[in-house]
């Protein structure tokens, strides 16, 4: 990768090529969404009968049939599918079988909790991961690397249900500093976001370290050093921009994952986000809610990926979304 800084006017970032590219990507996104939803629609209906889970223990076959009729599950699969697509296009994702409320309302209620947790976890893992990545690259082979890298890897190796419960035992049960579960204000965000961040930080640290190591031997850094740039200045002014793209890519993927709902962490901390709703809806075979969650999660993935690709152009003007960047 060449590293000479090339300048171009900001207007070029959204050239006609970019517009075409974005339109194309959005077209692909709609196609991907359609595919995902179709697969989920049929796979769900092969996996069990929500009516059987809803009726009391002593219900008869006739009671179950009656409920299936009411839920519209007795219509042919094809009919159900066409109905679902027709309604979905109009923004109606159906009613939850269990809660008897619009699926869309259920997920929009939960989304802010998940978003809050995801953003907090991402910020924590970025701060921690980038710092560790830069230090371990600059101090390669020294004690700093030997101490920091295992810490980060241990964080990644520990599953969320273990880290989460350990944190609760220490900070809630033992020290009583922080709330154990639920959302009781900003403090209760701390334990779940640290749990989640411990999983993402390692990926970010490793990518950062790799990117920095790649840049270190290059001329522009040697020049900057020769000009007397201090370590901090070297990192923030010179390295930052040239290592941003791989870090951004990993961070965006992590964010997309987190926004889909951090299932285990949300269950441990009784965090009322999408992850918990997903678990409950899948085990109750609450088809409309599962479908709505899948549509949302896929859409988030697509949008974040597209946003990241466009951001590349902002960070490094030589990259033009659409693949027709000027030769440097």
């Amino acid at each position, binding site marked *: 990768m060449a590293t000479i800084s090339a*300048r171009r006017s900001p207007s070029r970032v959204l050239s006609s090529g970019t517009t075409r590219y974005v339109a194309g990507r959005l077209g692909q996104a709609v196609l991907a969404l359609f595919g995902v939803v179709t697969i989920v629609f049929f796979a769900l209906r092969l*996996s*069990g*009968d*929500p009516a*059987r*889970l*809803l*009726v*009391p*223990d*002593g*219900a*008869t*076959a006739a*009671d*179950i049939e*009656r*409920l299936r009729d*009411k839920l519209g599950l007795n219509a042919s699969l094809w009919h159900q599918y066409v109905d679902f697509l027709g309604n979905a296009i109009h923004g109606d994702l159906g009613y939850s079988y*269990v*809660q*008897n*409320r619009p699926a869309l309302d259920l997920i929009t209620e*939960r989304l*802010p*909790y998940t*978003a*809050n947790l*995801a*953003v907090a976890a991402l*910020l924590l893992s970025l701060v921690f991961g980038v710092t560790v990545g830069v230090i371990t690259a600059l101090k390669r082979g020294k004690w700093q690397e030997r101490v920091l890298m295992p810490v980060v890897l241990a964080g990644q190796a520990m599953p969320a249900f273990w880290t989460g*419960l350990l944190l*609760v*035992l220490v900070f*809630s*049960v033992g020290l*009583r500093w922080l*709330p*154990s*579960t*639920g*959302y*009781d*204000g900003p403090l*209760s965000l701390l334990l779940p976001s640290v749990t989640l961040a411990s999983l993402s930080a390692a990926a970010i640290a490793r990518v950062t370290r790799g990117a920095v190591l790649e840049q270190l031997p290059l001329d522009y850094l040697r020049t900057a050093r020769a000009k007397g740039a201090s370590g901090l200045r070297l990192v923030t*002014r010179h390295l*930052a921009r040239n290592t941003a793209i791989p870090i951004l890519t990993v961070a965006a993927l992590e964010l997309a994952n987190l926004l889909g709902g951090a299932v285990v962490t949300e*269950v*441990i*901390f*009784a965090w*009322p986000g999408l992850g918990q*709703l997903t678990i*409950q809806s899948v*085990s109750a*075979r609450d088809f409309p809610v599962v479908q709505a969650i899948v549509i949302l999660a896929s859409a988030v993935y697509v949008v974040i990926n597209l946003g990241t690709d466009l*951001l590349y152009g*902002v*960070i490094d003007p030589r990259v033009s979304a659409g693949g027709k960047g000027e030769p440097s």
Partner: protein
Amino acid sequence: MTRNRTALKALAAAALCLTAAACGISPATAGRDAATLVIDTVNYPSTLDPGQQYDTDSYSVYRNIFDPLLRRDPKTNQLTPSIATSWTQLDPKTWKFAIRPGVTFSDGTPLTAADAAFSLNRILDKSFGSQQYANFSVVSAASADGPDLIVRTSVPSPTLLSYLTTLSVVPEAYVKKVGDKVFAAKPIGSGPYVLASATAGSEVVLQANPKWWGPAPQVRSAVFRAVPNVASRVADLQSRKADLVTTLSPDAADQITRDPKLAVLSTPTERVAYVAFNTIKGGPANDPRVRHAIAAAINYDALIKNLQRGYAKPINSLLSPLAFGYDTSLPDNRYDPAAANKLIDEAGVRGATVVMATSPSFNPQIVQAIQADLGAIGLKVQISNTDQATYLKKVQAPAHDWGAVRFGRWSCSCLDADGVVYPLFHTGGIWSSYSNPAFDKLAEQARTVTDPAARQQLYDESFKILAADLPGIGLFQDYAIYGANSRLSWTPDAQESFFLTDMKVS
């Protein structure tokens, strides 16, 4: 390098905006005092409309907002008045309930017999799609007759009164005015508490209803929090975040007993852990001798002592001793490996494979313990573990090809043999992989006889048939296990009713 800085600033600004946008979530737990009880349940209630579902986490909350037509005494399990002050049987198929005068809903409208009739008819209305329909399907009409509620059944029904303890009375005028959907979100009842706030997926706050007709409850407000993970519920109790937590596992209960400020509250329930056989297409289990061998191979005391840690009681059939129809003359199930081995040899099935169907909803340790016990008498148990939806689909299918043995837990919330033996063993029932016309006849008769002595006799006879044919074995009577802060005094009841009015805090 100015662009560099601009880009970084833009990124930082974007991150901040995202955080700020995401901050639109609100804590709902302000202002908790000594008279507030914080309760951890497993799930957020799926509805607050008592006409729809009857799952534990929903009714634990809504039964405090509404009054039931009848109640059971928490100590004796006998029927006691609630909204109905007295009841009489006019003829075998007609009941009259006198409705308590002077009761008002929390919005001030008086509660009448018409409201009680509406509450029942609503569940029977096909277009409403209530999941409780099965409990009341015997009712043919409910109507108001002046201050009384008249309920007619299609056949004489000995279990009607039992199920009416689960009927909450809702305000007809309000439900019709706002519609079912708004009613589920903003319920109004005549009960001891009113809904103060609800945060979706997280918690529901109830406050004492100053207009309630009964004695003012000592718990002035209660916060029901949804905490699905059992270890997290224990941590909430230990960190004093919660005063009472429901649905503990026996291991979790052990953890709680180590803290002197906490207590385990438990009670035997009508829930029974059982093993049922496929006597139609169960391979080796088609032979009653094999079923008796399996019954003698299971080490019941070990299950109760080691896995349930004492939170269970021995039992002699699939019926809880609390329920009507329990046959006290039968001996408790006995572990007798020598007899089991003999039966296995007689049947000539040593080394045979039996498929055991189960789901993650059932304790895998118990399934494995049974597998080991059966292994000891020469049966190879192949566990077929599928999720609950698939398990139900397989077990309830009329093809009967789900395997030979399955483990389950059963409670009809009716304290009556009819809610247990009929659905589990009557020919053609969705749970039944057993058929015996003599048993069917007795079970059918017992559904329509209202004289308790005659019914008991019918059940005694049917339990004799079941003990001989053995289409299922009761493993133990299950306990409900709660963890509580010692500032709470409360005796849980067998129905797991969860009435806040029965609780006191200090």
